[in-house]
């Protein structure tokens, strides 16, 4: 087990990448702490799988280095890295029994037979397949096969890290929750570094201590689920995390106020001058709908069970607000923005306020 450092890393699938757009993975420096449980979150095609494959050595990066601890493994073969990876779709060795499938990585490492038997039983119990150990893996259902793949990923105790590439896609929802819980238990018990790729934010937020959000080949933010929610470093994070995503409104910033076509909104902090496209971002959760505040137009109200979502238009721009349970939209609705919950973005990146009320500098994360 060791810390994994990606230094100056970038990758392109083209032989001679010319522009930034040719890179599947833009240049990055990133450190995965030993024993951390990370979720790698992002839309399809943003480079998550490429990043994972570079860590496991299935793909050699076009530039930069991969370090396990202090050891440079950039040119090391996958098998020399001793790393486990579970893929999106199940991979089982058809002609082997379930038991042999689970034992395969251990046998390849030349472990002793008694240990293998013990460990395989343990893993089989964990994935709930102890009654089917002696049958052939061929002909099992997709989710049973995926459980075997997961089991094979977890069976080695001495791996440097376990990488999961959207492993629960083919699993049914009930089993999904159970397996995710077991993965968390496993992490608590053995303390492996785990990197879990997903595009499902619920999955990411429940699994991980730290969530890494990727967008168009870049890591745009790494933080706790709370940091991602409160201070998204990039408009993509604001939009991708939360349901519905963060409201983004074009505005002009002067000092501690945002101007939206004549209407002023207090920001709760002082900002320096901004360049490029300037937007303010506020979570629908922090938009209050009552009978006082700024005028706006309600388009429709959606009932999503626990609360209702107000879809509206404010100063000609679309906006969503969350209406808590029990409250309703007044006859002449007005809206208010919770103080200090507004973030400012210039060309999609978050702008740090120069001061916040109450003194001191904001401790929000800098964008990378």
């Amino acid at each position, binding site marked *: 087990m060791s810390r994994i450092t990606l230094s100056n890393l970038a990758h392109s699938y083209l032989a001679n990448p010319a522009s930034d757009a040719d890179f599947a993975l833009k240049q990055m420096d990133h450190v995965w702490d030993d024993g951390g449980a990370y979720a790698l979150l992002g839309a399809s095609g943003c480079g998550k799988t490429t990043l994972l494959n570079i860590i496991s050595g299935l793909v050699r990066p076009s530039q930069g280095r991969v370090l396990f601890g202090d050891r440079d493994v950039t040119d090391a073969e*996958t098998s020399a890295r001793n790393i486990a*990876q579970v*893929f999106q779709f199940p*991979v089982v*060795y*058809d002609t*082997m029994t379930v038991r042999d499938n689970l034992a*395969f990585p251990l046998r*390849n490492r030349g472990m002793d037979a008694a240990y293998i038997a013990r460990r395989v039983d343990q893993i089989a119990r964990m994935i709930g397949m102890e009654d089917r150990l002696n049958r052939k893996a061929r*002909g099992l259902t997709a989710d049973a096969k995926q459980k075997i793949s997961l089991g094979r990923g977890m069976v080695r105790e001495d791996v440097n890290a376990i990488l999961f590439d959207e492993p629960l896609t083919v699993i049914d929802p009930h089993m999904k929750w159970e397996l995710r819980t077991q993965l968390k238990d496993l992490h608590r018990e053995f303390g492996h570094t785990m990197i879990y790729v997903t595009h499902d934010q619920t999955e990411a937020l429940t699994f991980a201590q730290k969530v890494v959000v990727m967008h168009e080949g870049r890591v745009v933010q790494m933080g706790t689920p709370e940091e991602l929610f409160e201070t998204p470093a990039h408009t993509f994070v604001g939009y991708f995390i939360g349901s519905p995503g963060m409201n983004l409104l074009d505005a002009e910033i002067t000092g501690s106020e945002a101007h939206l076509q004549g209407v002023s909104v207090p920001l709760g902090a002082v900002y320096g001058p901004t360049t490029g496209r300037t937007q303010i971002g506020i979570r629908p959760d922090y938009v209050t709908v009552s009978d006082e505040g700024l005028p706006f137009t309600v388009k429709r109200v959606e009932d999503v069970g626990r609360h209702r979502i107000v879809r509206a238009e404010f100063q000609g721009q679309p906006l969503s607000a969350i209406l808590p349970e029990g409250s309703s939209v007044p006859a002449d609705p007005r809206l208010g923005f919770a103080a200090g919950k507004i973030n400012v973005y210039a060309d999609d990146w978050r702008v740090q306020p120069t001061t916040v009320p109450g003194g001191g500098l904001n401790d929000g994360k800098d964008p990378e």
Partner: protein
Amino acid sequence: MEKTQNNKAWFLVLPVLVLVAFSAVLPLMTVVNYSVNDTFGNNEFFWTGLEWFEEMVTSDRLWDAFGRQMLFSGIILLIQIPLGIFIALNMPKSGFWASFCLVLMALPLLIPFNVVGTIWQIFGRVDIGLLGHTLAAMGIDYNYTNDPLDAWITVVVMDVWHWTSLVALLCYAGLQSIPQAYYQAARIDQATRWSVFRYIELPKMKGVLLIAILLRFMDSFMIYTEPFVVTGGGPGSATTFLSIDLAKMATGQFDLGPAAAFSLMYFLVILLISWVFYTVMVNMDREDAK
């Protein structure tokens, strides 16, 4: 309500029946007819019952040819199947060279059988053939017209040259259908090259491999043209395989009765062995699904 009974739909299969009757059933029945009669021409037939069959079953000549035939099929399967797999494993997976290899491999398959025979007949000749002359010049005593072993080697090498491509191409198709994720998972699991072959490639190739074995067995068991052109079944009867023997008997000696009995048994043997292959294949599939 009484259900109307109307089986007139059966008449719809009549055209097919007529077609099959003329193309397969009638010629086959002619053979059956010859096999139970003796004839001296003039369309006169004398009933002999199963005499020809008895004669053929006890004929040393037939059993010798059968033995040679089994040996030949065995040898070429033992060479072509592993060699085909080996070639398929080492062919480029994509790009220009993959297409190039595919075309190159397909070439021998496109050459007519008697041309293949002629090519090797000339290639192996000691006086003018590139192979024969070169071997002679190197001091190796090679002559497929005199030496039974040389004749066998020539015929086997020729068949390997002609047909290994088929096995290789079938295996290649099987290999190409394996998703990349399997190889990646094997690397993650630190599998050896042998394990990758044994647990990923071989199981995925099994289906096409069994078809390749079946095809190669049937084809080699019926081989006629190429050895006939190269060695004419000689020296002596060293390379006289079943088909060659049959043709000698039927058109060389005009022993139509024995030849007919012989060909019927030949047909049944091929049918039997193919059925055994098929059953084994199906059973293996069923066992795997358990």
